[in-house]
């Protein structure tokens, strides 16, 4: 779902095909394949953070203990979400913040 809103890298080459209907429409056989590169939510955020001059790196999914916590909320506050999905963890260097975690609501 996240990939739908991310910019995709599109590469065009000269040796494969689109659908046959396109060939008929345009009158040539050499169509171009479209390569879509999916970027994970936390990796996209890391790119933006680095552009802002923040030293950080994205960690692989599920590699840190924080991602394997039973709950991401203490539930002291009312209406804290219970069903959430971890979308990645970012390690931040040289700041008071140690990590940034992206969560998606279920």
């Amino acid at each position, binding site marked *: 779902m996240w990939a739908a809103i991310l910019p995709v890298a599109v590469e065009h080459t000269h040796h494969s095909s689109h659908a046959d209907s396109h060939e008929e429409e345009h009158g040539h056989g050499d169509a171009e394949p479209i390569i879509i590169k999916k970027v994970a939510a936390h990796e996209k955020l890391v790119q933006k*953070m680095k552009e802002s001059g923040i030293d950080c790196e994205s960690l692989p999914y599920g590699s840190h203990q924080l991602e394997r916590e039973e709950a991401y909320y203490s539930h*002291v506050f009312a209406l804290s979400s219970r069903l959430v999905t971890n979308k990645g963890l970012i390690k931040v260097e040289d700041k008071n*913040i140690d990590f*940034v975690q992206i969560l998606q609501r279920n």
Partner: protein
Amino acid sequence: MPKQDPTPLPYGPLQYYQSHFIVKIDSEENDNVLARCEPVTKGHFGSKRVVDIKWTGADKFAEVLRADARLTEMLKEVMLREGEIRVDPLGDHIRIYGKWIHEDAFAFNQTMFEIADRIAGHIKTRLRARRNALTIARRCSYLLLEMKLPLIVLEKLQFCGKAVVSQAWLEV
């Protein structure tokens, strides 16, 4: 205006995301940094603006955050978008987060990052000072016990020591 899915599924992930800024600190006093920030607004719709920031929370931590003028100024910039900021302590770490944001509007916000970093700075300063006070109190107790003084002298000295440490604790 966020795009709404015309045929949403009755289950599965929704199109809402949240960034949690995490401070990793293992302290016995983690629960004392619970806090919540809400905006005080005037006007409606397009003319709605933040006029003040209201902090509520446990212990004196909310007062520390309220006293930070620079933090208040930065919060006024983002509170219309963020709605609410919570400082939520868990076992060995503390999470700082705002409300859920639709995927169309979800992006890195430099001001929100600076706010979270500033709050994290206050958390670390406070918890480290408290941890130091506790360490000093424990060392004082051990030293007094090792001196093998008569019981009555020991009790009086321990009482004085506790009073001094308690005073230091309150001032943190």
